[in-house]
């Protein structure tokens, strides 16, 4: 008899009518899930370094549990070995002893308090593990391709048996803690995936060889864990539908589908379909991969197995999974990063409040932080990982209502305006342009998915309108205006000023600003030099290279893309090469001439580069109105690029921080 733990009735919600396939129940094993939504297990490095659950971790997960509106909320994968070889992240939760059960119970209770189903993931990190010890474990001692990871020790048969016992013990603890669903992680380079791939499994015993041999560890694992789960607790598994490791002779796609069938035969109740490894050279989840790109893998999986399937991987908007479920290609919409950016995302979809969704921009900053032993941060969501701090996450109303003037309607100004107005202030935003968005208007013109950056502005605009922010578009804030208005506080969010080349010819007509180029106000010739090798320079360079122009980047940083997080930067380096963009790092422009510029290296070499136009992307802080405001004795804040030119994330975080304290 199938069991329903929490009753949910979605019939009166607009989202259930618009996306009917997302909000209908499904049975997994003997458990009925009220909807098709699952928060995917996600490391956040918020737990103590010895694996105990913290208040921050509980608060983080509870917000996501609220968001799934009755669906599945999976806690991060736990490591299960006392010697910590399976631990892949410094703040990863542990389950190798009964002493961890109370912490796990806190998580299960927090999920249940939101009437959602609690999933616990078992995750031995294999060749990407051993974050705090010298050697990680794997089926074979294949050297690491990425130096960030530890050397691999080949597991003995006794190690394998011990590892399976540890999975079983951790399952018992998760069940005692009250979890409703257990999931085994076998993806992206973690232990089970290491056994499955011929790239990392060179064993000649029964755990190696053909795909059935390589899956033997998985089968024994599933059978042992399933014994404890019994009929009432569904057991899921995350498996690669494609490893994307052809360059190092990984599994073939057809072999991956055999692993799905073997897992089903072994007793798995649902499969989460995934793609790629951390070592893959193919982009999988970054912004340059269009949304829905991996749905063909979900379709393929459905053709091979009967158990329900779920999928995350660039399904950032509800129409994609709704359609896929309707067409029978998928059963459950799984989310990780969209719910890091907005924990309430599916709830807002259900309530018909899609304009209130803070969309993930697929920058992978969250992942980059984890690999550098830092707590999770979201590029676009300042509250992420601060859920346990009510003063920060839900700031109280202002004690004294102020009249606030915000200069600039870019991401920093908008975020600040929204938060300040939400706290009860009267907020006026002055923007010299006739539209809002600041430099994101131009930045979102760059190729490889940058149009998604503008989703941030759409969200902020909607929020500002809801809390009564007054916009004065097409009106430049001047000293005179400030004197006339005499606000209580001024927030300068004007964006940066563009630097002047400190050499001869900087004022020539062929020197143009990147904003004018990206908005097509300035026409440029066939050969251009972009001055500045950070993201704004890379963005405009790729924009022009896509128009078949010969582009050269000249920048002072030692390597291009210094301001792009490492989990995304490598993609840009490949795109620059693929589009024929020449990059001179550690260089500056000494002189702009007619039809060429003189480049000077950091150590004094000079060489000419032919070009029709120079595009300026180097930026500086903008303190144009600072002195005038201070002279009037008005409280002043400077945020975003006006303070220090950085990126969209810094603008949003600056705006939020000032918005909650002003």
């Amino acid at each position, binding site marked *: 008899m199938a069991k329903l733990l929490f009753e949910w009735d979605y019939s009166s919600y607009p989202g259930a009518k618009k996306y009917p396939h997302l909000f209908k129940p499904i049975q997994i094993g003997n458990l009925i899930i009220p909807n098709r939504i699952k928060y995917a297990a996600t490391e956040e490095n918020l737990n103590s370094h010895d694996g105990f659950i913290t208040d921050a971790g509980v608060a983080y997960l509870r917000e996501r549990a609220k968001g799934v509106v009755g669906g599945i909320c999976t806690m991060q994968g736990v490591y299960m070995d006392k010697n910590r070889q399976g631990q892949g992240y410094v703040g990863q939760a542990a389950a190798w002893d009964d002493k961890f059960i109370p912490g796990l119970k806190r998580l299960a209770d927090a999920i249940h308090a939101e009437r959602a189903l609690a999933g616990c993931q078992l995750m031995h990190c294999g060749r990407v593990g051993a974050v705090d010890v010298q050697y990680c474990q794997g089926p074979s*001692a294949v*050297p*690491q*391709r990425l130096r960030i990871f530890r050397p691999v020790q080949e597991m003995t048969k006794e190690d394998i048996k011990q590892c399976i016992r540890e999975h079983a013990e951790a399952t018992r603890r998760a069940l005692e803690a009250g979890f409703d669903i257990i999931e085994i992680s076998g993806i992206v380079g973690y232990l089970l995936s290491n056994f499955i791939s011929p*790239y990392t499994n060179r064993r000649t015993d029964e755990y190696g060889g053909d795909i059935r041999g390589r899956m033997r560890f998985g089968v024994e694992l599933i059978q042992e864990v399933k014994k404890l789960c019994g009929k009432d607790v569904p057991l899921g598994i995350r498996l690669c539908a494609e490893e994307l490791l052809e360059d*190092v002779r990984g599994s073939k796609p057809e072999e991956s589908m055999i692993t799905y069938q073997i897992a089903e035969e072994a007793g798995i109740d649902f499969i989460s379909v995934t793609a790629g490894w951390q070592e893959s050279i193919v982009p999988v989840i970054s912004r340059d991969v269009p949304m829905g790109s991996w749905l063909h893998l979900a379709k393929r999986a459905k053709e091979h197995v009967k158990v329900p399937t779920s999928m995350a991987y660039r399904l950032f908007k509800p129409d994609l999974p709704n359609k896929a479920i309707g067409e029978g290609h998928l059963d459950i919409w799984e989310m990780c990063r969209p719910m890091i950016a907005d924990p309430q995302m599916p709830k807002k979809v259900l309530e018909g409040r899609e304009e209130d969704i803070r969309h993930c921009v697929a920058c992978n900053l969250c992942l980059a932080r984890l690999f550098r032993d830092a707590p999770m941060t979201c590029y676009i969501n300042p509250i992420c990982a601060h859920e346990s701090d009510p003063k920060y996450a839900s700031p109280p109303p202002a004690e004294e209502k102020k009249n606030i003037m915000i200069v600039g309607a870019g991401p920093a100004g908008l975020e600040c305006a929204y938060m300040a107005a939400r706290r009860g202030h009267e907020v006026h935003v002055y923007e010299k342009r006739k539209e809002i968005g600041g430099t994101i208007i131009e930045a979102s013109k760059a190729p490889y998915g940058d149009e998604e950056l503008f989703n941030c502005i759409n969200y902020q605009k909607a929020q500002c309108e809801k809390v009564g922010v007054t916009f004065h578009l097409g009106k430049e804030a001047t000293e005179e205006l400030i004197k006339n208005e005499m606000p209580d506080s001024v927030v300068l969010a004007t964006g940066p000023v563009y630097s002047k080349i400190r050499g001869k010819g900087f004022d020539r007509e062929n020197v143009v600003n990147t904003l004018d180029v990206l908005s097509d106000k300035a026409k440029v010739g066939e050969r251009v030099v972009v001055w500045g090798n950070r993201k704004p320079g890379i963005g405009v360079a790729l924009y022009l290279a896509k128009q078949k122009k010969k582009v050269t980047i000249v920048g002072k940083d030692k390597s291009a893309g210094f301001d792009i997080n490492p989990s995304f930067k490598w993609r840009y380096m490949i795109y620059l090469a693929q589009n024929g963009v020449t990059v001179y790092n550690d260089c500056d422009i000494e002189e702009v*001439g007619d039809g060429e510029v003189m480049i000077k290296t950091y150590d004094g*070499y*000079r060489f*000419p580069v032919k070009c029709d136009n120079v595009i300026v992307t180097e930026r500086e802080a903008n303190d144009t109105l600072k002195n005038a405001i201070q002279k009037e004795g008005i409280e002043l804040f400077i945020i975003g690029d006006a303070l220090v030119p950085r990126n969209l994330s810094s603008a949003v975080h600056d705006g939020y921080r000032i918005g909650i304290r002003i």
Partner: protein
Amino acid sequence: MAFDAEKEISKLWRNLHIAQGEIGRTWFRWREAALDIAGPDANPLEISLKAAEVTGREIGKALLPRLNWLKGEEAWLMNLANNLANQWINHGAIVKVEKMGNPFEVFIKWERCPWPTFAKEYGVKMQEDLLGCDRILQSILSDVNIFFNVNYKIETLKAIPRGEGMCLRRLYKV
């Protein structure tokens, strides 16, 4: 816009040669330091070969992300051989990679190499210089072989330190 290409290139060229010289001398300065600390009973050859092994392993690790199997084994092998040659070219050697009939065999030819000269400058025996290069190359192959699940070896057929005018090595599939 005044620009004297010859002046800029000659300056760059001169500094490249100075940098190459420093690379060579740094190796032998470290060798002297290691021998001093190891004491009079230490075997210089043993220490030198250990350093060569560490160096080779490091170079091998750095090669792993650069080698790619997608274009097939022959292309992969040429890529590997060129990467090996480039290590020495960067130090000032003239190295060429040549294929003969066997698709899984290449010959790497050092027509000129600065390392025996450095060795002489520091009073190091030619045998140590030769065995050091051999050890570096073998150590590079060690991780590369495991990672790509192949078995390639390299053997020295001729050697400048032996007075044979060139170093000729055969990189082949076992």
